């Protein structure tokens, strides 16, 4: 059996970078063809510099690694603390980093679609992105997704 998975990664926080990458590496391990469309803040996951500095939100996020009261979340350093805590939790569980997941996905042949509109809106140049991205608009991604067995929006 082999299938095709089409994912949309639309969020650029540390916690939301993981689900599409976990699903993509799993599907590719099952022998599936996989494509991820990185759009809006999800494009940060493909951004050479920003992907190293994805953060956990400490304000307005009742579901972080620790329960930070909203008012305490605005204290300088709270976002960095929440981010460090999440990274430590993942490390302690022997989970790969976002950058390591990207390398795994790439080795498995996962296609990275970089949203051309997001690049235009946010002033992102092709040279800002990691190697091997396919710059695409919505039509090109939908053309890939139309033949997919599973399509998910993250």
């Amino acid at each position, binding site marked *: *059996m082999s299938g095709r998975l089409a994912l949309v990664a639309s969020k650029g926080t540390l916690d939301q970078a993981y689900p599409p990458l976990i699903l993509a590496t*799993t599907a590719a391990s*099952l022998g599936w063809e996989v494509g991820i469309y990185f759009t809006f803040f999800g494009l940060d996951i493909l951004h050479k510099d920003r992907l190293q500095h994805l953060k956990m939100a400490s304000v307005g996020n009742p579901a972080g690694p620790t329960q930070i009261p909203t008012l305490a979340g605005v204290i300088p350093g709270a976002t960095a603390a929440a981010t460090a805590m999440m990274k430590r939790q993942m490390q302690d569980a022997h989970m790969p980093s976002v950058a390591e997941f990207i390398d795994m996905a790439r080795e498995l042949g996962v296609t990275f679609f970089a949203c051309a509109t997001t690049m235009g809106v946010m002033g992102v140049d092709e040279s800002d992105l990691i190697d091997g991205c396919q710059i695409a608009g919505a039509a090109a991604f939908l053309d890939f997704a139309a033949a997919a067995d599973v399509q998910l929006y993250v």
Partner: protein
Amino acid sequence: MIDEKLDTSGLLCPLPVYKASTVLSRMEPGQVLELVCTDPGSLADIPALARQRGDILRNVEEQPGRQVFLIEKGPVQ
């Protein structure tokens, strides 16, 4: 007869599936992989991996805190 062994103790999804798939991919059809997992999700995930890849799950042994799978590599598609 076991041709390859892989111990994924302490690793969580997707790593047992990812690592098992990597090893199975370089094995020959008919060869058998002994896979040890401690992730409770593996009990559902490894049969799914075998089904999706076209491999044959020969045996599942549930031991305290871990599972031991015997997977025979299926014919290459």
